[in-house]
């Protein structure tokens, strides 16, 4: 995202995920902070069943005669707060304009290409809220805008199961072997 003013025609708006150190942000207005504020199971979008395809939902190159099957994914809503900060009113209006362009009629999409670069999904996004929070800070104007954005997402049950798998056994080699050249083994205590 770029803004302009009398000193720079193309001033980049820095973006951080989460709050950076104060010393960093005070030097670099305008900037934007993106925070993940909620992860919610979207039960109202849940459906059940089993699906089959040839590329495991775009994650594996298709091979003739090979089919992948998986359960319907679990829908989740990922909610973010996007807060913009600027000292210059022109920067503030430019940021608002560009954000509104991303959410015509409160609705937008987020491009998500797969790892292979063979498919691209466009996740629905919803602008759930907008709040203008301008203030005076140390005698200077600070223009703030808080956007609440919801991105639809999903997770397959197998992914969830794998994430929750419990360690059953832990095997430890008490005698160290195959020590790389140049390294010294830690002596075993009795």
């Amino acid at each position: 995202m770029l803004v302009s003013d009398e000193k720079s025609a193309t001033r980049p708006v820095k973006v951080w995920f989460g709050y950076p150190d104060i010393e960093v942000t005070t030097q670099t207005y305008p900037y934007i902070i993106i925070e993940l504020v909620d992860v919610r199971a979207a039960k109202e979008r849940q459906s059940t069943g089993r699906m089959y395809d040839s590329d495991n939902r775009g994650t594996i190159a298709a091979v003739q005669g090979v089919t992948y099957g998986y359960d319907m994914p679990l829908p989740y809503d990922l909610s973010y707060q996007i807060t913009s900060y600027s000292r210059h009113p022109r920067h503030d209006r430019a940021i608002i304009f560009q954000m509104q362009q991303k959410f015509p009629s409160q609705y937008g999409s987020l491009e998500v290409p797969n790892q292979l670069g063979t498919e691209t999904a466009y996740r629905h996004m919803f602008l759930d809220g907008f709040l203008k929070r301008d203030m005076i800070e140390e005698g200077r104007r600070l223009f703030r805008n808080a956007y609440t954005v919801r991105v639809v997402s999903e997770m397959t049950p197998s992914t969830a199961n794998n994430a929750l798998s419990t360690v059953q056994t832990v095997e430890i080699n008490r005698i160290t072997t195959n020590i790389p050249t140049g390294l010294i083994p830690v002596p075993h205590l009795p």
Partner: protein
Amino acid sequence: MNTNTVANDALKKAAERLTPEFRQEALNAGWPADIVYQLTVDEVDGNLQVSIPDEIRSKVDDLEYGEVNGSSNRVIYRFEKSHTEGLDDIFESAFEDVAVNLGAFN
């Protein structure tokens, strides 16, 4: 008795039940008690929402959206998005009452 009246009554019942739940969540999230106990869940124009008195709105916005260089703590947003469980039962019960009153099961 018409369906709108029943639906509004059902929403009011839900609001009464959800107010203490919301307050508990806000307290758990670290919001100060003197602010939390001024907040209520109310039925407004057929919807449930957290009501904020004007005199503390600025403080609540600071808590919810974060102060300058401070993280947000979106208690109200999360609550309003997530705490609709149980409303289905309340509405179902309410509409059954209407159906009974209209003689649907006679």
